[in-house]
């Protein structure tokens, strides 16, 4: 076994992420958190493309190093498995987002438009946005062709009632720090002050309607589990 190659593998952790001051382990942890959050949140979350790109870079680097190891080396298989695992993580994260984008495309594009108008950060990455627009267009064309036999049909309904995520579905979460007075949204229209409040301690695990914690999640105060 080429000791230098292994060392290099490990060194790569420190070197390639110097500019963002992150270790490889930190990047992986961030990716894992983003993946779990995306997997369990009903709606699409702000994208984490910088983490994805970071990790992909690291995967490419590791694979390059692995190439140079003889195929019989036991360490190679361990590292290869790790690379495969990381690639699964990224793929699964991106796949989950694509699923959501496709399922809720009309809804998501509408929200992105609003965010764009109010100069907020978009949730979709550039590539995702392009993809979303393309498939929305393809869907529209398909439907247009369908109802073109008679002009002026009442078609507003599928646009006005787009497929939407169920924001009230329940999620398990873990609080990353103390958060006080979270308003519990039970779906009823409660007036201010009447609604129930709850405090999260750091590390606490809670089952709660997603709508109550969507904001906290996006801020990074809590994570889903």
């Amino acid at each position, binding site marked *: 076994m080429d000791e230098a190659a292994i060392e290099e593998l490990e060194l790569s952790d420190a070197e390639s992420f110097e500019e963002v001051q992150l270790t490889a382990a930190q990047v992986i942890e961030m990716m894992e958190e983003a993946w779990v959050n995306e997997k369990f949140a009903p709606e699409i979350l702000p994208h984490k493309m910088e983490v994805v790109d970071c990790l992909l870079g690291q995967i490419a680097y590791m694979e390059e190093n692995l190439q140079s190891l*003889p*195929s*019989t080396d036991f360490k190679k*298989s361990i590292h290869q498995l790790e690379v495969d695992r990381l690639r699964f993580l990224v793929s699964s994260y991106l796949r989950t987002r694509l699923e959501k984008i496709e399922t809720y495309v009309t809804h998501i594009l509408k929200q992105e438009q609003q965010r764009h108008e109010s100069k907020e950060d978009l949730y979709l990455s550039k590539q995702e946005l392009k993809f979303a627009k393309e498939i929305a267009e393809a869907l529209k064309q398909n439907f247009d062709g369908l109802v073109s036999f008679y002009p002026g049909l009442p078609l507003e309904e599928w646009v006005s009632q787009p497929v939407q995520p169920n924001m009230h579905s329940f999620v398990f979460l873990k609080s990353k720090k103390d958060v006080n007075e979270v308003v519990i949204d039970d779906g009823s229209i409660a007036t201010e002050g009447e609604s129930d409040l709850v405090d999260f301690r750091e590390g606490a695990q809670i089952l709660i309607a997603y709508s109550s914690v969507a904001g906290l999640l996006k801020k990074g105060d809590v994570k889903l589990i």
Partner: protein
Amino acid sequence: MYVEDLKKDFYEFLAGKRVFLVVHYDIDSICACKILQSLLRYKHVSYSLAVVRGLEDLKTAYHENCADVKYYILLNCGGTLDVIEELEADEDVTFFILDSHRPTDLCNIYSNGQVKLLSLPDEDVGVPHFHDIFREESDEEEEDENDSEGSGSEDRASKRRRLDEESIMKRRERRLWEENRDKLVFDYSQFTYYARASAIRLFELAWQLNKEDKDLLWLAIVALTEQMLFGKIENTQYTLEIGPLQAHANRLQNMTNDTDVLTSLKIAFEKDLRLALYRHWSVEDSLKYSMFTAVKMKLWSLRGDKKLHELLADMGFPLIQSRQAFKSMDLQLRKEFHEVLEKLSEKYGLQDLVYASFTLQYGYRNKYCAADIVYALLAILEASPRDKKPEELFNLALDCLSRSKKEVLDSAIERAKIIVKTLFKTAQSALDLKQIITAGPFVYYIIQEGCLDWYMFSHLQILLLLAHFILRAYVAVSRNRKAPSLPLVVSAPKSMDAGTCIILGIPPLCENSPKNFFGKAFEQAAERINCDSKCDYFDTSYFEIHTKDRTRFFDALTALLS
């Protein structure tokens, strides 16, 4: 050549290479294959696997893959023939051969490295010395020929005279040498027989590598049990092999600390009865149909039947209980069964009813003895519906050995009962209809084309079991004093369409040894009558000829053996 250090020159050598496994279609091979697979996995050796039933299959498998794969492992096939020659193998191809068929081909033994035998050298008995078999053409002789061709030298005549004398001497010597060689080769290859199971050899390798576990041990046990049940090895050899396996079983049992009944696996060394599948059958059926009891008590006759009921009465087993599934019999009776039967064995002439074997136990309800598994595998390999391909059945047999597929095992055991029953009934009708015929130096029995179960007997191992059953039954009832010294030849249809049949010979009972001389005899008989024959089987005691030639073939065989 033999591989001396399996670990270094076989196992570690293969790391990182692409390997092709060629596995013979039999029980030992399946067990061996499973052990080998688990070993190759530790090294991440990627492999493909093909199942072969005879030489033709082996050739096909080789030629389909020889362009892509350079390392071949042959399990229970190829050892008895010159593989390089037969397969027209390229020089960059290497064969590792672990074959329990004997005798091993001398070219394989003396190969300079392209063929590597994984068995132990002392398993090949009476191997002639290299120089008695292979003779390097001396330079002189070659010159000789060159000279005689090149004409025109002056004192040709005198030289020729001198040369003539020399070459006459040489030729004489050469003839003697050749005669000697032919004799040695004949002596060496006269008998076909089986060496120890390949699965045991591979289990030992696993042990050497510290990668053995109870599952692998069980496979070795099943393979050994198959050899014993099918009469492929002598009883002494069985006893010799069983000792070390018992030691392994104890050692592995002591090493585990898993006491959870649900997950733990226990291999126990136990005395067992020579009764087929009785744990999964009823006592009466098992007693009646098993070869051992059937032959000893002549259970095919009315008197035998009566005797069986006497035995049951003596044992204190009510008929109603002994006709029930063993599992649902009264607990007390179940516990006593072994003991009571053993006690009565002498009275009923059932000595040797008990033999040493192993049982496998897992979960609450699963207990199988090694013979149960052998029967189940036999049922899958040789008594499955006709439309199944051998590869499918091979896969099914592998499933049957994995503990998670209990339903496969259970349904195979059900079918195995049908085999055991059919064996009994076929033997019974052979006796009733006096179909076992003496032909002077041997007796024979032919399964006619019209026979209901002919298809079942077109399979090698079932036919072998039938042959054993028939010969023993014949000896038991025959008034011929010579009966124990007569070998048996059975024949069964192979393919209706092609009009071919299988011939199988087994040695006489008195010899008490599975060494089989029929291979050579068949070959010579076929030569004598100049008939189309096929010797596709790796076990040469099987032979295949056209059904129309059978009578002439038997005549020739009679003449040959007289």
